[in-house]
């Protein structure tokens, strides 16, 4: 039976349906393998280091250095400790500069887990217990590639030069996920201090790491709990937060893969139906010769098993290649090396292959049992569509289960399935309507055009399927391309020539004057300084802030730290939407909020807020809400106060200005003179964000290529299933005297029209989708993209006729006599 089933596959392969089942399954499994292996590697990267997420047993975080008495408490509690300070800073190599996420650490770090380092960028790391020695820094590979240097090079950090001695490949407390926008630089605390980097760092995050026996840690936690300005993080909290961007991204990829899976499933259902129909005659014939159903079923099951194994092997191979591309896209934004491949996703793929084949193709084959053998004598066409519940229910259950497993969410799976079903039905209706409209077109005398137009209508069912399959795939790819272009265009055009492009933070009050002079002498323009104080909201309308609108999101907004600023006049890029600007004659605290910020907390003018800034408490009333143009790149704040109310607050300055490329030398001077000041380069930040998103979208596009391939299988299937009808029609017309050349031209015209309509429809739907996404989701301006729209149209225009021609060319060239003879039998 084994060899017979293999021979049967070979025999039946050229008929088409079995090959279509194979390709649909292969593509589906390839898409699943690509995404699942990527996501499995990401998850294992997190799980493997789950116990080390904090690099400690408990972490205290503060905006200031952790008080000595707390450190002392830790030591007396028999806990080992280490300190880290994380802050943004700019490093220089010659005239090139780069914003980095610096982290200064003391001996002992990390208390749990180990750092991993390598000698060369993008190489596998090895664990180490050492830390950067004095005069040395360790950096991520990305920093080296961005600055075009290697290990052994010197970097300027703050006022000093440091040797890049190692590449940092893993930090336990930066587990998995995407790095921040800036690459990491690791330095020891003593060096950071001597380079002037830790002086009055407003953007610094100071952490005290402690580790020890559980009871000691608990006792220490109780002792420090409730200390103002200190956040305590336990390993459990870190674990919850580790559900991070990388997993979100892989979940997004899973969603994209699901499109390929569902389209592939449609192809398998369609091909499975054709296969079952094609098996009616052989099954009836074999039964008439006395072959038992059990033997026939055994033969078919073996055939399906071989088919599944072959599809699984090919699908897994293609999927593994694709996951390599996916990981490459994500590699430059991953903090840590991903673990190698595991067998589990491969076994899962085999299981899914069996489930898909079993639920999508087997039910129809099983129905052949009900077919009476008498059919062989009477040429009765036994429809396998009669028992639609038996046919489609297993398919729906399997796809729902698979979707839920992929998305890890039953509700979302059901929504996605029904959503795609609704999209397909809408597309089918639109296509049907368009084809009906074409029928109403005026009388056309040209015979080829007439034939082509009537062909569109005559083959409405097949054409609708062709357009829907290709249209769906085109829409998916167009939407992605469109959104990516929209976002990138938005960022590229958002900076007007003299828009501020550099920001300085952490400017101490005494540094403001000399800094202003330095900047003015360096030829900067649009220079603006703003004061900034750090505070916490303690009460809202008299109620403790944590209890105010507990359902509002995110909670940190109502009880976390906020930046306050003050000025007498309304900033240029702000518009009052509600209430009135500060009354200069009123000495009480008046507050103006960004309207988005206020909406999130359901605050309106008249509400009161209480701030704690250092030792000082401020209570004020909201007098206005403002719309803020954040993309103006001017200094803007969520919360502004009237200057009279904040006379005694501790504060720093922040500055924004436009710096031409020719004058960037001043940045180095700023770092030299004022090492505590952090410089942000807006343009490079925008480039980094754009680059990150473009890579994510490219990863999505790789997955959507599978959707496209699945759509092609559906299209080929649809063309093949309508082929005999086409052949018969062509043969009859040729017998009736219509010239072959006329028929050929009409055929091409019909398919070009169909392809053009598909492309046009896809462009229109994609434009609608992207308009909505741009406006409501991404908040970027939507632009008509003629190149992309043109390429979508052209793809439909070329691809549909081409695929149709490739599939049907041999059949359409068959002599009419042969066709008539074969169809009469």
């Amino acid at each position: 039976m084994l060899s017979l089933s293999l021979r049967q596959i070979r025999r039946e392969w050229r008929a088409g349906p079995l090959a279509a089942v194979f390709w649909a399954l292969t593509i589906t499994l390839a898409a699943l393998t690509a995404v699942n292996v990527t996501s499995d590697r990401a998850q294992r990267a997190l799980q493997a280091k789950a116990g080390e997420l904090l690099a400690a047993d408990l972490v205290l975080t503060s905006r200031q250095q952790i008080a000595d008495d707390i450190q002392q408490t830790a030591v007396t509690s028999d806990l080992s400790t280490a300190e880290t300070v994380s802050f943004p800073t700019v490093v220089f190599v010659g005239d090139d500069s780069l914003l980095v996420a610096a982290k200064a650490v003391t001996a002992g770090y990390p208390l749990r887990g180990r750092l991993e380092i390598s000698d060369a960028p993008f190489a596998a790391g090895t664990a180490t217990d050492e830390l950067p020695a004095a005069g040395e820094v360790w950096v991520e590979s990305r920093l080296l590639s961005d600055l075009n240097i290697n290990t052994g090079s010197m970097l300027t950090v703050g006022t000093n030069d440091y040797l890049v001695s190692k590449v940092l490949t893993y930090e336990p407390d930066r587990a998995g996920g995407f790095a921040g926008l800036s690459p990491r630089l690791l330095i020891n605390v003593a060096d950071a201090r001597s380079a002037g980097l830790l002086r009055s760092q407003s953007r610094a995050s100071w952490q005290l790491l402690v580790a020890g026996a559980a009871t000691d840690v608990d006792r220490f936690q109780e002792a420090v709990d409730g200390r103002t300005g200190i956040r305590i993080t336990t390993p459990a909290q870190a674990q919850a937060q580790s559900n991070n961007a990388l997993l979100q991204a892989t979940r997004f990829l899973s969603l994209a893969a699901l499109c390929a899976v569902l389209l592939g499933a449609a192809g398998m259902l369609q091909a499975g139906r054709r296969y079952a129909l094609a098996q009616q005659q052989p099954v009836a014939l074999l039964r008439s010769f006395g072959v038992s159903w059990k033997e026939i079923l055994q033969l078919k099951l073996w055939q399906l098993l071989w088919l599944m194994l072959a599809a699984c092997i090919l699908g897994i191979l293609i999927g593994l290649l694709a996951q390599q591309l996916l990981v490459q896209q994500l590699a430059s934004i991953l903090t840590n090396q991903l673990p190698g491949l595991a067998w589990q996703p491969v076994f899962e793929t085999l299981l899914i292959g069996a489930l898909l084949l079993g639920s999508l193709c087997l039910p129809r084959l099983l129905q052949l049992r009900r077919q009476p053998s008498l059919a062989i004598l009477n040429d009765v066409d036994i429809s396998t569509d009669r028992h639609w519940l038996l046919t489609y229910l297993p398919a729906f259950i399997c796809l729902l289960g698979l979707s839920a497993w992929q998305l890890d969410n039953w509700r979302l799976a059901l929504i996605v399935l029904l959503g795609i079903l609704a999209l397909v039905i809408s597309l089918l209706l639109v296509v049907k309507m368009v084809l009906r409209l074409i029928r109403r077109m005026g009388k056309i005398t040209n015979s080829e055009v007439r034939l082509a137009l009537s062909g569109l209508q005559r083959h409405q069912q097949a054409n609708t399927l062709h357009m829907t399959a290709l249209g769906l795939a085109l829409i998916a790819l167009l939407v992605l391309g469109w959104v990516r272009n929209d976002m990138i265009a938005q960022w590229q055009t958002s900076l007007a020539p003299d828009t501020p492009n550099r920001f300085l933070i952490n400017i101490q009050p005494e540094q403001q004057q000399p800094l202003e002079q330095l900047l003015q002498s360096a030829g900067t323009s649009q220079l603006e300084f703003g004061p900034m104080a750090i505070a916490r909201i303690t009460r809202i309308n008299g109620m403790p802030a944590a209890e105010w609108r507990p359902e509002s999101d995110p909670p940190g907004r109502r009880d976390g730290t906020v930046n306050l600023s003050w000025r007498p006049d309304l900033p240029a890029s702000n518009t009052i939407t509600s209430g009135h600007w500060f009354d200069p004659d009123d000495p009480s605290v008046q507050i103006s909020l960004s309207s988005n910020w206020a909406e999130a907390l359901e605050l309106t003018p008249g509400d009161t807020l209480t701030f704690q800034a250092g030792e000082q408490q401020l209570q004020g009333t909201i007098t206005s809400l403002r719309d803020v143009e954040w993309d103006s790149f001017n200094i803007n704040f969520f919360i502004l106060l009237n200057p009279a109310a904040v006379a005694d607050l501790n504060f720093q300055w922040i500055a924004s200005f436009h710096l031409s490329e020719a004058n960037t030398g001043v940045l180095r001077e700023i770092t030299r003179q004022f090492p505590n000041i952090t410089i942000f380069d807006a343009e490079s930040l925008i480039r980094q964000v754009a680059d990150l998103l473009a890579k994510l979208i490219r990863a999505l596009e790789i997955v959507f290529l599978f959707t496209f391939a699945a759509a092609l299988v559906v299209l080929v299937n649809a063309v093949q299933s309508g082929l005999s009808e086409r052949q018969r029609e062509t043969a009859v017309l040729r017998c009736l005297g219509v010239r072959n050349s006329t028929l050929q031209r009409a055929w091409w015209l019909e398919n070009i029209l169909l392809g053009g309509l598909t492309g046009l429809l896809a462009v229109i739907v994609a434009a609608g989708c992207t308009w909505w996404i741009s406006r409501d989701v991404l908040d970027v301006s939507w632009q008509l993209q003629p190149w992309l729209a043109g390429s979508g149209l052209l793809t439909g225009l070329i691809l549909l006729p081409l695929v149709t021609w490739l599939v049907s060319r041999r059949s359409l060239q068959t002599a009419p006599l042969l066709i008539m003879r074969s169809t009469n039998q």
Partner: protein
Amino acid sequence: MSQDSSSADSVILSCHNLHHRIASADHTLSILKGIDLQLKHGESLAISGASGSGKTTLLGLLAGLDVASEGELQMFGQPMHTLDEEGRAALRRRRVGFVFQSFQLLPTLTALDNVLLPLQLTGIDNARDKSMDALNSVGLSKRLSHYPSQLSGGEQQRVALARAFAGQPALLFADEPTGNLDHANGNHIADLLFDMNARRGTALLLVTHDLDMADRCQRHLHLRGGQLQTDVRQAA
């Protein structure tokens, strides 16, 4: 190879009081009304009748491809009317051959594979050699790897004949075997059919509206009004 152990005079197929009715939406149509017949080992029997007289339905019922509404049917001494579809198929296994009007060759298989597949599935030894011999005996030894679409109608029916005889059945059902062929090809197929029937001692039940062909059988019954007339030649 025939598995039938019965003697030359033994009955291998018989039916008694066979009725068949088809229910439609508003009435019941009686197609066969009390058919009685017997077929002995090696005997040839033709059933003729006008189009729509129920010949093919009768053949299908006698072959156990469907179940009669009423009546008894015995094949190789077994009560076929009591068996289910699987039981009837098991009874036909290796003992029954078929030739159909529309050839019923599988389009995706070559001539050789069309003959080979049923033999392989029913577990006949040396299936390949037997298939090639059968095709050779119908003059198609040079067409083994041709697909049905590459063969003429006459050639296709010769492949069907080879398939029917390759398993050396004891009983062959033929439904209008020349119905789709021209006169010359029809005669050729008829010659082959009767020749193989004679040489291999296979019992033949032939359904046809071709009276010349029916007359070449040892017995010829006529179906009219759902009932079998007496042997046409005896009556004459």
